[in-house]
């Protein structure tokens, strides 16, 4: 009688046999492995059809099972990530050093980007978390969990320190930035809702097991891997070309993980400030931020009529919020078809339902027909399964629609809230903590022990004051 383990005619291998494939390492170990193998072959000899008897005594080679990257290195990755974030925080808040951050960016780009090929990355980890939340059978690797949690937890205290110099995607874009131009405020505000919508779409598709959209449409991983789909290679190069003039376009207008970090940074305990002590309103830093995160001081008009109007508008927008959410949820329903089509099971089930009556093709089949053939084997169960997934996707699409409505509504509300700001300061959500603005602040230069009284020294014989206005 066959033991159950061999019922499938398969063996999960890798550990011991892998070592046996290279038996020079450790004689005792390989001996024990040999004994183990001998026992297993005796057991298997009962079931396996005997190979030919070689009169020449030829020995059957073993199937090799080369090991993957040892899992200890995953923890190394996590340790490097933690160290990089710590260094980043240190460089931003303590050293206030742009040069240091550039160095860290270069390291991150080399390690997480070109050495680890952009995988595992915090941006993609969102999808693993989403899948784990909705698919009970899926276990998130510990390293992926760490990549998701660490930058987010840090953002609650130190803003987007991860974006500053740890994320390889950000580092790559940061390093190609040549001549930043200012994105018009209206466009900037409009585009800044995209990451949240992208995040919603990514979570919807990952959570329903349809696709890892964020990985599939990652523009920079093909750059790190130096290979990939033509579409994404072109997109990556185009984004980098754009990134020479528009600071970090992916981070600001697409990155779904950036959206999460932005939310974290909005309530962060400590924030990046341009000046190390007091703002003298010298406006030197005014143009320093290439990411449109630096806001000028703003005085709120306190005229009662204006105030009343503003309040009325705010109340209207807040009242609009649920309407917007519900309306968009209704619109989201129309997306469920497109989202379901992205799910391989559902799209195959659609084909199966359409061609259930047509007989199976004979001869050489295309991959598609093979898949159809496989689905046919257990058609009813397959269709039932697909229907369950489709239901989840429909619900998910509605939630996604509602989410889009919420994002737009909150954006409108946010734009209607007046923030009193007396200093030049970066908005905590948008600030990528790149440390560029620090060097623009005279107080910072003083802090760094810059020679006192430099302003009184004329430049090329002409008075300095007019140049600085």
């Amino acid at each position, binding site marked *: 009688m066959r033991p159950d383990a061999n019922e499938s*005619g398969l063996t999960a291998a890798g550990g011991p046999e892998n070592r046996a494939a290279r038996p020079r390492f450790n004689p005792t170990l390989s001996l024990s492995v040999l004994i183990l193998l001998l026992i297993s072959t005796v057991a298997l000899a009962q079931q396996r*059809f*005997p190979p030919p008897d070689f009169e020449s005594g030829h020995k059957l080679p073993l199937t090799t099972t080369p090991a993957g990257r040892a899992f200890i290195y995953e923890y190394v990755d996590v340790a490097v990530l933690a160290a990089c974030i710590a260094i980043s925080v240190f460089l931003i808040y303590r050293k206030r050093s742009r040069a240091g951050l550039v160095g860290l960016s270069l390291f991150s780009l080399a390690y997480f980007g070109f050495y680890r090929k952009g995988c595992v990355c915090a941006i993609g980890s969102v999808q693993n978390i989403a899948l784990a939340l909705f698919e009970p059978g899926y276990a998130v690797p510990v390293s992926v969990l760490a990549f998701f949690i660490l930058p987010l937890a840090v953002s609650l205290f130190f803003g987007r320190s991860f974006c500053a110099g740890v994320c390889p995607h950000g580092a790559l874009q940061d390093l190609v930035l040549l001549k*930043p*131009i*200012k994105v018009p*405020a*209206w466009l900037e*505000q*409009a585009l800044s*809702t*995209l990451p949240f*919508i992208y995040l919603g*779409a990514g979570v919807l598709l990952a959570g329903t097991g349809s*696709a890892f959209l964020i990985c*599939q449409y990652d523009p920079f991983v093909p750059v790190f891997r130096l290979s990939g789909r033509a579409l994404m290679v072109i997109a990556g190069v185009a984004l980098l070309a754009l990134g020479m003039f528009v600071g970090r376009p992916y981070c600001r207008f697409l990155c779904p993980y950036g959206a999460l970090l932005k939310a974290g940074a909005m309530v962060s305990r400590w924030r990046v400030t341009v000046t190390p002590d007091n703002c003298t309103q010298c*406006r*030197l830093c*005014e*143009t*320093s931020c290439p990411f*449109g*995160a*630096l*806001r*000028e001081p*703003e005085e709120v008009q306190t005229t009662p009529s204006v105030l009343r109007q503003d309040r009325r508008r705010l109340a209207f927008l807040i009242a609009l919020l649920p309407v917007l959410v519900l309306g968009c949820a209704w619109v989201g329903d129309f*997306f469920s078809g*497109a*989202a379901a089509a*992205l799910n391989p099971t559902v*799209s195959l089930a659609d*084909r199966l339902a359409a061609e259930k009556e047509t*007989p*199976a*093709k*004979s*001869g050489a*089949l*295309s*991959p598609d027909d*093979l898949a159809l*053939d*496989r689905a046919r*084997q*257990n058609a009813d169960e397959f269709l039932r399964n697909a229907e369950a997934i489709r239901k989840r996707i429909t619900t998910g699409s509605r939630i996604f629609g509602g989410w889009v409505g919420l994002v737009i509504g909150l*954006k*409108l509300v946010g*734009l209607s809230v007046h923030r009193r700001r007396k200093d030049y300061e970066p908005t905590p959500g948008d600030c990528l903590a790149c440390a560029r603005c620090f*060097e*623009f602040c005279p107080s910072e*230069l003083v802090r760094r022990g*810059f020679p006192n009284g*430099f302003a009184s*020294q004329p*430049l*090329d*014989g002409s008075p300095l004051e007019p*140049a*600085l206005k």
Partner: protein
Amino acid sequence: MRAVPAICQLRIASRAFGKTFSMRGPNTQFSRRRFLQSGFCGASLCVLGVSTAGSKAVGAGTPASQSNPLVYNVDQMTGIDPTLIQYEQVRAIPGVGAGSRRLAIGPEGRLYVAGRKGIRILETTGNPVGELPTSEPARCVAVAADGGVYAGTRTHIEVFSSKGEAVAKWEQPSPKTWLSGLSFSSSGLFAADSGNRVILRYDLEGKLVRKIGQKDPQRNIPGLIVPSPYLDVKVGADGLLRVNDPGRHRVDVFTAEGDLELSWGKPSLSIDGFCGCCNPVGLAPLPSGRWLTCEKGVPRVKIYSAEHALECVVAGPDLFVQNGRPGQVSDQPDGTLGGLDAVVDSKGVIYVLDLVAGDVRVMERKA
């Protein structure tokens, strides 16, 4: 004068640069209407983007028109001239049981199917008559002239009386034994042992009389090549044994004493040869020295004349669609299992067992 530090110059230069490129300070005071307009445009753009991305991904996910450029294609080589096909399927007997391996026909005209639970006995109409359970899954079966049944499991032979009583259980001849074919004749019971690449000749008491087909240069026997457990043996009306030699793509003719008389058959995908690397897998005698052969991979049943020339085709791959796609059948625990077995009754009706579909096709000569 020259003492102005470089960093200060840099500051001033960059400020001038900023002015030149009209980098004004960020302004949050902008028209909300403009934002709404742009937001609407942005949203619709996003919708457009997502839907096109979606449709693209759909294209990537289900490559509807895409075919495999490196497909292993035997279609163009296995086409059968329709005039060669002289039989047609008149009916099928479904559900003879998963894991059925071999088929035999009794003197009373009943079908005996060796399967997972033992031997199933059926009328040729498909009516189940009885079952003879074996201790292990049955892999081959032979019926004696008196109606006694010999069931071969992987390791041994179990004997049943004509009334269906278990009579004897012969002992395993060798540790490597892997029985895959049985044939009864007046000179004894012949068992095809794929594991040892040999035909075992038993007397009716279960005593091993002789081993046939072993490599023996003195008797000019090259030895059977059996890569997989499909060795079959059938005794013809002439008393000679027909043994398939799947590794050589031919049929060997042995005397009951173990002398190799002759061999016939050639490897080829074309209809007159035996296809693939291990064929034929099943044999059945026909009147006047003609023989029926079964092949797997490209499942086909053919009839060879007494002169070993292809006479006609009974059934081609069209009749056994799943069988022609071995390993692509998910409910088979063994990915490669496939093949056919066939018997002929006294009226010349051919019964073909499809191992994958688990049914028996009843083939009659076309009118």
